[in-house]
């Protein structure tokens, strides 16, 4: 018996993706040429699987801010927010996030994963209830595991199914935290937010919306799906990440409830970890200002989204979502065809994400494309053309 025996199934799943050629999991990216192009296996490729939705990772102002902070404050804070890791800039970013939403409280975390871990595990305590969408991100499930609340899963994007579960709780539903996402990263689909809010209100429950993939993409100021739907006033907590539209690493939770601040005293993933490095905080502050004023970036992104979705639909691909969005998930019949598509696209100079069970909902085999404002019309032409060739060859 070895401690490693339990990983044999995972090792087998990885081996089934092929030992030869470029690995489709943890694909080595040898160089970054721009926010939209890189080098894989010595070949220049279009990056269409990065979540760099607004292309801000190499924005000159964002990079300049990071460089200045790096040179002035050094490489890291070497401590937690509770000890020596609270610099002026951390608090300033929190204030700016709260101000963007018009809310009194915001907390910054070292990763987006930790933002969910901390918020979910701490907000819902021992005598409380968590109601999670079945397609929730791992960080949401792990937040539930870390906390002590009783956790119940409801069917993906099904407000009626949530309603039934809340009804069973009766009066206890007032101590239930519902968690849904603004955009689901695997299938690229969106929740029926207004219907979920109706259910939440009917039971006097609480709602946390994870806008990791929708922040920067939806809404006049890029604040996410709730802003676009005109429903910000109905949300209790919004969690977001710095590692997608904002081009850095870290995460946040913001709320119209000023008491969110109390989580600083109780949230273990906030207390027992080093605070984000000054350069990341600086780049995120600049990126945030570009996101909120970034209608032009969003307009470019949406042009790209609409063109790609139209083309994929024309080719007859089955997509994870009918509604266009920054993630286009192509559902393929099996692991082999998904892998063949992934390799075919890479051979044509397009890097995408291969997603297979158990990382995917409903056992689906997916080719996942994420679009960026940094993609030019020519990039989209090339992606569309590559799919056309694959379709012809099929």
């Amino acid at each position, binding site marked *: 018996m070895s401690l490693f025996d339990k990983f044999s199934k995972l090792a087998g799943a990885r081996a089934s993706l092929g030992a030869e050629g470029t690995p489709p999991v943890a694909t080595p990216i040898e160089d970054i040429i721009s926010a939209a192009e890189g080098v894989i296996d010595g070949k220049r490729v279009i990056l269409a699987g990065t979540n760099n939705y607004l292309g801000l990772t190499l924005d000159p102002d964002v990079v300049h801010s990071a460089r200045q902070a790096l040179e002035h404050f050094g490489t890291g804070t070497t401590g937690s927010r509770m000890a020596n890791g609270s610099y002026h800039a951390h608090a300033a970013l929190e204030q700016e996030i709260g101000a963007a939403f018009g809310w009194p409280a915001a907390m910054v975390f070292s990763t987006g994963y930790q933002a969910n871990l901390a918020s979910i595990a701490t907000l819902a305590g021992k005598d409380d209830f968590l109601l999670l969408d079945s397609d929730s991100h791992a960080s949401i499930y792990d937040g539930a595991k870390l906390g002590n609340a009783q956790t119940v899963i409801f069917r993906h994007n099904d407000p009626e199914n949530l309603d039934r579960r809340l009804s069973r709780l009766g009066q206890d539903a007032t101590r239930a935290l519902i968690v849904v996402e603004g955009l689901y990263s695997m299938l690229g689909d969106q929740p029926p937010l207004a219907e979920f809010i109706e259910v939440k209100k009917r039971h006097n429950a609480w709602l946390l919306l994870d806008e990791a993939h929708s922040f920067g993409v939806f809404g006049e100021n890029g604040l996410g799906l709730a802003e676009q739907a005109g429903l910000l006033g109905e949300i209790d907590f919004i969690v977001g990440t710095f590692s997608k539209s904002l081009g850095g690493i870290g995460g946040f939770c913001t709320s119209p409830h000023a008491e969110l601040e109390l989580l600083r005293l109780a949230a273990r993933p906030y207390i027992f970890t080093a605070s984000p490095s000054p350069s990341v905080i600086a780049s995120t502050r600049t990126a945030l200002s570009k996101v909120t004023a970034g209608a032009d970036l969003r307009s470019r992104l949406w042009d790209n989204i609409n063109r790609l979705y139209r083309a994929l639909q024309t080719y007859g691909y089955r997509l994870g979502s009918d509604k266009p969005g920054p993630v286009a998930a192509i559902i393929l019949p099996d692991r082999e065809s998904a892998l063949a598509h992934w390799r075919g696209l890479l051979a044509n100079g397009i890097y995408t994400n291969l997603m297979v069970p158990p990382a*995917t909902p409903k056992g689906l085999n997916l080719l996942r494309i994420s679009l960026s404002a940094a993609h030019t019309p020519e990039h989209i032409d090339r992606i569309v053309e590559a799919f056309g060739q694959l379709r012809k060859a099929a």
Partner: protein
Amino acid sequence: MTNHNDRIDQAIRNAVETALPQINGIDFDAALTSDIGLDSVQVMDLVMEIEDELDISVPVEVLAEVQTLNQLGERLRSMIKDNPA
């Protein structure tokens, strides 16, 4: 009691048929993950079907405690006993 037992066993059978149509025959003593080979998503789909069949909510913490359908059935029986509809 027998009625309860029958109802729960039938709900599990129906749920397996709906959520896991690829499974041939139901072995109530087989471990869901190591013997039948289900992943965590498939186990969750199965439990959501059972919840709908029986009109109860099964906390995910329960799933960590059970390995087989028989063990799940036992837990469901005690949950229904504690909170009869």
